[in-house]
């Protein structure tokens, strides 16, 4: 399967959930997914299209559009395509269904996205901070309106 067939199969299965599906090159594809259908699309990708490997889950803060985006990079061992799935979330209540039941390694990725962006992954088995201390929860350091960086508490040593 090459990249156009994959995108055709995906848009044919989910005509309403998938939008702006484009192929950047022979090995890269991108698509926006509806946030309610993200888990179903991932399940279909894994079962029907042999996309076995979840590379990363991360977040992007588009503060001018008042939106957060959660980005999934999903790759395949059978055909050389990396698919970038994005889901738009409202900035005041960013919630998306967890995909841990589909890709088990999404567990820690989602925990890190949660602690840095505040994106709540529903039905996650263990949603707590991964590398940040517990008392920093709620500050969401990688959001654009975060005020704790640069941290000016250091004494001037010079």
């Amino acid at each position, binding site marked *: 399967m090459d990249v156009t067939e994959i995108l055709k199969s995906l848009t044919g299965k989910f005509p309403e959930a998938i939008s702006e599906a484009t192929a950047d090159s022979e090995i890269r594809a991108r698509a926006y997914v509806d946030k309610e259908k993200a888990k179903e699309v991932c399940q279909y990708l894994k079962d029907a299209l042999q996309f076995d490997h979840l590379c990363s889950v991360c977040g992007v803060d588009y503060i001018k559009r008042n939106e957060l985006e959660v980005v999934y990079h999903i790759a395949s061992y059978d055909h050389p395509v990396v698919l970038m799935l994005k889901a738009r979330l409202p900035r005041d209540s960013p919630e998306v269904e967890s995909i841990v039941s589909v890709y088990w390694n999404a567990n820690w990725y989602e925990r890190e996205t949660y602690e840095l962006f505040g994106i709540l992954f529903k039905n996650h088995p263990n949603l707590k901070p991964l590398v*940040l*201390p517990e008392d920093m929860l709620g500050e969401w350091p990688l959001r654009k309106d975060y005020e704790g*960086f*640069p*941290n000016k508490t250091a004494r001037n040593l010079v």
Partner: protein
Amino acid sequence: MGEVKEKKTSKSDEISEEIPGVITTTTSAIHNLIKKSKAQDIINWGRKNSLWFMTQPMGCCGVEMIATGCAHYDTDRFGIIPRNSPRQADVMIISGYVTKKYLPALKRLWEQMPAPKWVISMGDCSISGGPFYESYSTVQNIDEIFPIDVYIPGCPPRPEALLQGFVELQEKIKAKKDRGTEY
């Protein structure tokens, strides 16, 4: 000869315990007497020649720290031996950035070490933050938390620099200028 923290007792209590004709003394009084005498020089000579450091690597400086403890640089000739347990160690080397999440664990290790104990701050990260200066997740001003005797700049410092830092710490202990003991 461990350092015993002097218990603060009011003078009235000491007078009430005094028995006429009998000179009473306390452990802390003996320690204070020793600290002011020449005997402390001999004690410090022993301490400076057995600076066992804790193998607690925290970043890329930790690799240099381990290399310093290995056979090529042979710190054993100065009496500096890597130890795996904080309860056997005299020197803690802060060898990397201290994140807010790691600081409680580092404090716990420091509290587990028996006195007398010293701290060496190794590398730019532990001195000022290095590349992580002004970051949201690292602890700034580490010298306010631990009594640091020697700063070793470098990113990371070479094992020779760490050896030099140990020698400087030995000189400080010999001169009774270290911050690990109250003289």
